[in-house]
């Protein structure tokens, strides 16, 4: 079975990097991953979306963009509404940034709302790493990628001067989840 993940938010929230890091991590775990992007021209205020499709094998690849997501991560309200239609009604997991989203757009069964942006600012000192904080949460909750892999990916994929702060954000997210959230089993 393929697993479809959609990550979306406003321009400037680091959505594309998030998708890239997650994709790389999944690849590292041996999955065949397709990671595509969409974004608008504005650096901020526009939209940004990263799709990840995890295929069981190369022979089975077909689609490039998410058709109906099994997992959806929305970092901002507007994009949640725009892309809600691309999420399965019975999606395995919905993650929302509670800083910007009050209510889920649809009555999805499993919704995890965490104020990533606020928490990142609080715990790491800058809202700019909300995305990687979220990845920490994701990593713990889903167990799809273990922290070691993710940390290695961060080290090799992020510009040197940004590595430290991102590692910090990842850890903070992971620990936050460990302390406050429950694991969710993802079928793949």
């Amino acid at each position, binding site marked *: 079975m393929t697993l479809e993940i959609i990550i979306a938010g406003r321009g400037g929230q680091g959505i594309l990097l998030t998708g890239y890091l997650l994709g790389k991590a999944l690849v590292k775990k041996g999955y065949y991953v*397709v990671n*595509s992007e*969409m974004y608008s021209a504005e650096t901020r205020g526009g939209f940004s979306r990263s799709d990840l499709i995890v295929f069981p094998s190369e022979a089975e690849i077909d*689609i490039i963009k998410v058709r109906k997501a099994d997992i959806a991560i929305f970092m901002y309200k507007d994009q949640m509404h725009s892309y809600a239609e691309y999420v399965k009604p019975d999606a395995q997991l919905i993650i929302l940034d509670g800083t910007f989203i009050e209510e889920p757009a649809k009555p999805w069964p499993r919704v995890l709302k965490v104020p990533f942006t606020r928490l990142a600012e609080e715990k790491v000192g800058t809202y700019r790493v909300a995305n990687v904080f979220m990845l920490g949460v994701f990593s713990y909750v889903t167990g799809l990628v273990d922290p070691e892999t993710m940390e290695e990916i961060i080290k090799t994929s992020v510009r040197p001067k940004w590595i430290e702060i991102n590692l910090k954000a990842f850890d903070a997210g992971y620990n936050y989840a460990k302390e406050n959230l429950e694991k969710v089993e993802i079928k793949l």
Partner: protein
Amino acid sequence: MARREFLTGNEAMAEAAIAAGLRVFIGYPITPASDLFEYLAEKLPSYGGVVFQAEDEIAAINALVGATYAGAKAMTATSGPGFSLMAESLGLAAMLEAPIVIVYNMRTGPSTGIATGTGQGDVMQSRWASHGHYGVVVYSPWSVQEAYNLVVKAFDTAWRLRVPTIVLSDAVIAHTRELAVVYEPGEVKVADRKPPREPPGEFKPFKPDPDDLVPPMAFYGEGYAVLAESLVHDERGYYTTDPENYERLVKRLEEKITRNKHHVVSSEARYTEDAETVIVAFGTLARSALALVKDLRKQGKKVGLWRPVSIWPLDEEGLSKAVEHADRVIVAEMNLGQLYREVARILGPTGRKIELVPVLTPELPGPDELLGYFRKAGVEI
């Protein structure tokens, strides 16, 4: 050694060019091809290659031709507006039989269009952009891996046939990441020029070998006093208005491709063994079409997919074989009928119904949206 990497199409095509022996990249920035250029700007120098930003695309393609005559594997990457500007000297490359490689990442046209959108509006243009009759080879990938493979193949074709070769990719592949197996220079097989067999003075730079119709190539600096003549020329490269020479030259420019078709044409058929309906699609749209075919199969419909990999020339035999059992052929493409025209021409005489599904959108549709376009076109499936 072969590595598996998680790369965007642009990164993969850059890697492929390096593996194929790229020595000169000449670019002019344009979305969605700039990052291929930027990747090479980072990486190519460490392989001894040179990256140059020209003042415009016209300079780029002319420089490319000059670079091949000076002996380098040379490439550029562009999109619609840039390719349009290259039209004149694409004909130069064909006329001079210069083995240039162009990565053409299609975006949403016409004109400035939507720079960040994708498209498939350039099928005909990639074949007919320049004036006069000449030949080019055009490949179109549907995945990052295939983009990699086809850039390698493009270098092989360009140098084997001395023909400008285009990899007609798109904005989606350019920026989508997938796993691809990549190699280092020397690990992939790419044709080299046939060196001259006669000494300077006797060697004729446009005298074809009779078997493959491709003339051996002397490089600048080797003492052959080679004249790359953009006028109609004889085997020595000398301008002549002689009608017979003209006929011979123009016919050969096209025939050297058809004669060597086995090196060039390629296509893929899926679920066509028993297909009553065959969907024809290429590039990234074919990915959605494949998913749609799978859906329809699940509904018990005998539908297949035929996907050209070489767009110019098409694998006509492959197509004919794929539709053997089909009485219906549906061409879906992101324009108002370009590949369709070729398919209709080829299959028309067989009496099959050939329908067009135009998919006009700046975003790659998924299988569900694609089905919507079928409905909109009144094509029941």
